């Protein structure tokens, strides 16, 4: 696909609030991206010029925020609405190898949708959620920088251009603790490892797995982000779009070039690279 054919939809409903900076991250890299309200896919009340189809795009992003106020559970209402109107299309979209990214609330939505962990290639959306993003162990909203170790061996199409082993992305959430079904924790972890679905795990400044505050939410196995078995759906709690530039890092003025690339940029570069080859 040529760069000018790439079209990214950043999906929103009421309460989504990181769509602008997410759109901007793609635009900085020269591809077309727009924030799209879920309504624009199905509602009759939307004027024609604002109507959209999922097939107008070749990359979908679920950005951060508090879709529907995080009521019921974070991401639950967005995913229920999406399932009711777009399930088939989305399933098809994923099967056709188009990339889908969920950041923070987006990860929660993909989890509630049953798209992640996404063990089954043929059924990219499971009927029920297979994991949960529970309330942080601290029981508080946590806005803080984290260090992540990149552990993917090449399956995840969102990190192929990532050169550093340890990156720093900030988190900002109250429900981000990765929880697997009771009794199946190790099994899930082994499957994720075997299928090369582990992408990021929280570590301390030296790169060791560590507890709070390095692991800001108490996630099992320090997991911060995973992809589906095919590697084209990726969900993570930390915000790569908030560290697109170096000056957005919390400690940029401790001896770095502020106008340089931030650690998060590689995520967006990777998916664009992938789309170019698609």
């Amino acid at each position, binding site marked *: 696909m040529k760069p000018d054919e790439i079209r990214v939809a950043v999906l929103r409903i009421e309460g989504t609030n990181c769509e602008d900076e997410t759109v901007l991250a793609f635009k900085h890299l020269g591809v077309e991206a727009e924030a799209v309200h879920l309504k624009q896919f199905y509602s009759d009340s939307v004027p024609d010029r604002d109507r959209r189809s999922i097939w107008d795009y070749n990359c979908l992003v679920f950005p951060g925020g508090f879709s529907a106020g995080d009521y019921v559970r974070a991401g639950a209402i967005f995913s229920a609405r999406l399932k009711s109107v777009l399930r088939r299309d989305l399933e098809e979209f994923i099967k056709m190898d188009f990339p889908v990214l969920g950041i923070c609330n987006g990860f929660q939505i993909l989890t509630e949708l049953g798209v992640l962990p996404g063990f089954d290639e043929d059924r990219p959306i499971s009927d029920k959620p297979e994991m949960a993003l529970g309330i942080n162990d601290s029981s508080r909203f946590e806005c803080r920088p984290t260090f992540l170790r990149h552990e993917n061996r090449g399956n995840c199409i969102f990190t192929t251009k990532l050169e550093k082993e340890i990156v720093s992305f900030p988190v900002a959430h109250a429900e981000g603790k990765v929880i697997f079904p*009771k009794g199946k924790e190790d099994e899930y972890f082994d499957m994720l490892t075997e299928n090369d679905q582990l992408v990021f795990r929280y570590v301390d400044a030296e790169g060791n797995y560590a507890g709070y505050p390095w692991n800001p939410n108490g996630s099992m196995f320090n997991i911060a982000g995973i992809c589906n078995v095919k590697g084209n759906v990726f969900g993570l709690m930390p915000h790569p779009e908030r560290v697109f530039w170096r000056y957005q890092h919390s400690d940029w003025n401790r001896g770095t070039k502020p106008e340089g690339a931030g650690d998060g940029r590689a995520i967006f570069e990777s998916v664009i690279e992938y789309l170019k080859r698609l």
Partner: protein
Amino acid sequence: MIADVYIELKEGVVDPEGEATKKALRLLGFNVRNVSTRKVFRIELDAKSREEAEKKIAEMCERLLANPVIQRYSIRWVD
């Protein structure tokens, strides 16, 4: 018909909100043994029978109100 649908964490799932509340209550001098959180949805619906209504509610829980990985639900009839 009116039902209260209780959503609670499954046994063994950590309840940080409950734990934090317990800690705060103890700081305030209350000697509480345990605190856990629940969410209640009061649902008003039409159905021919309780059985039918309970079936509908079960579906609601599975499709939106509860995440089966960490939560379970129970129904208490109000009316």
